[in-house]
Structure formats: structure tokens, C-alpha cells
């Protein structure tokens, strides 16, 4: 075994070990970041599920759907939210539903869902609706 062979082998092994270490570090950091992001996304899912659960828990009413919508909007505004999430609430263009947007840090687009009390039978049929017999 010559000195040159020993030096070449050592340099090669050291370079490979260094590169390998960097790749492992990158993979490890990416895995940890992905895990944290998945946890935040799960929390967003929980926030959306909680909104639907709340809606199902509303007492059915024969009243106007806009009243049930206002009630839902107020209730969703005070629901707890996990760190890393941001919530935005607005009344739907038709006025009888709530659009809930949950933005997750690190995600380009927020999750967004419409919740309509009427679709859960939580408000009455308005007067003048097409209620005639077909």
C-alpha cells in the first residue's frame, strides 16, 4: 500500500463522509419540517371539522337562515385556534352561509369551506320559496 493510495483513499472517504453527513442533515431537517407542517395542517382540519360539529349542534329553528348564519359566524369567531393558523370569516354572497378560511403558515393557499345552516336543517324555509307541489 503506497502513501499515495492511502492519501487518495482518505481524501475520498472524507469527502464522501462529509457529503453524506450534509445529505443526512438535509433529509433530517426536511423530515422535521414536514412533520411540523403536517401537524399544522391537521390542526386546520380540526378547525374545519369543529365548525361543522358546531353547526350540527345548533338547535333547529323555523327562523330566518340569516339569523342562524349570524349565530354561526359569532360562534366560529371565538373558537380556539392552534398556533401557526390564521382564521378569516365572512358571510357568503347569498347571505345564508359562512365562509371559513384557515390559513396555515407555509402554505400558499388557505383551506376554505362554506357552511350553510340550511344544508343542516338549522333554519326554516323562507316565505315565498318555491314550495309549490311539483
Amino acid at each position, binding site marked *: 500500500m503506497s502513501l499515495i493510495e492511502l492519501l487518495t*483513499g482518505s481524501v475520498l472517504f472524507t469527502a464522501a463522509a462529509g457529503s453524506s453527513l450534509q445529505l*443526512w442533515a438535509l433529509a433530517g431537517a426536511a423530515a422535521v419540517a414536514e412533520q411540523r407542517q403536517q401537524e399544522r395542517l391537521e390542526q386546520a382540519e380540526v378547525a374545519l371539522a369543529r365548525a361543522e360539529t358546531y353547526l350540527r349542534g345548533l338547535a333547529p329553528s323555523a327562523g330566518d337562515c340569516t339569523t342562524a348564519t349570524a349565530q354561526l359566524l359569532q360562534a366560529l369567531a371565538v373558537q380556539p385556534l392552534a398556533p401557526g393558523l390564521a382564521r378569516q370569516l365572512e358571510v357568503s354572497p347569498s347571505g345564508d352561509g359562512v365562509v371559513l378560511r384557515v390559513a396555515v403558515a407555509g402554505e400558499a393557499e388557505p*383551506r376554505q*369551506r362554506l357552511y*350553510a345552516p340550511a*344544508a*343542516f*336543517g338549522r333554519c326554516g324555509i323562507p316565505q315565498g320559496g318555491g314550495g*309549490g307541489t311539483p
Partner: protein
Amino acid sequence: MLPLAMGASLVLLLGSLSAHTVSLQARMQGIREQQQRRAEDRLASAGQQLLAELHRSHPCLLALPLPQWDVQGLACAPAQAIAGLRQGQGLGGSYRLVAWRPELQPAELLLELAAGGGQPARQGAFTVQLAPAQPPAQPQPQITDVRLVGLRGVAP
């Protein structure tokens, strides 16, 4: 010595590349799951929008299967309104009403999201609980609950 060093280096590099590939695959899986969730959001929202519109303006159609909307349904809803219910614009895209089967227990609603934004068309199936009509106080069935129960891609 040199072959040993080369072999060991190769093993180290291959091992770390494998770890990196696994982490990239996990990321891709996460992205796919997010796309699936967003499709569920759009479908769930479209379902609620459609049912709220039926409840608000045309509850008479709740009792009729979709193929009868353009026949018996015209007695209680104008053709333009029925066309608007069959094809609508919801949160994040347009949707199409594929099926409405109130004769089932629970009733079944099938919606299709249009393809767009690099995403394929998807269909979502809902179960809808209907309280039967009780004339004269409640002349039409009333929706009491809705659940998105399944999601599937649609072949182009």
C-alpha cells in the same frame, strides 16, 4: 486500501441519498394529501351551496329525482333556475350536479368538480337526510343533515 475507501464512500453516499429520497417522497405525499383535502373543501362547499339554494328557493325539487327536474320540476321552478342548479359556481371553481336520488334512504347527492389548476375532475358523493313532507305545515321534505362520504377522480 483504495477499493475499500471507494466501497465505503459509495455505501455512505447511497445511504444518505436514500434518506433524502424518502424525505422527498414524504413531502410529495403531503402535497397530494393537501390537494385531496382542498378538493374535499370545494366539493363540501358546493354541496352546501346547492342544498342551501334548494332549501331557500326551490324546496319542491328536493322530492324529485334529478331526471324529473326538467319534467315535473318545471311545475314549481323555472327552467333557468333548474339549469343554474345543475351547473353552478362555488368556492374555488365550477361544479355540476350529476345525480340527486331522494328516493334512497338517506338521499344521495353526486357532484362533479370541473378540472382546473392542474387538478383532475373529481366527483363527490353526499348522503343527505331528509325529513319527509308533512302537509299542510311542511309541504316539502326538509334537509336535516348532509355528509360528504366519498371522493373519486374522474377519467378525462
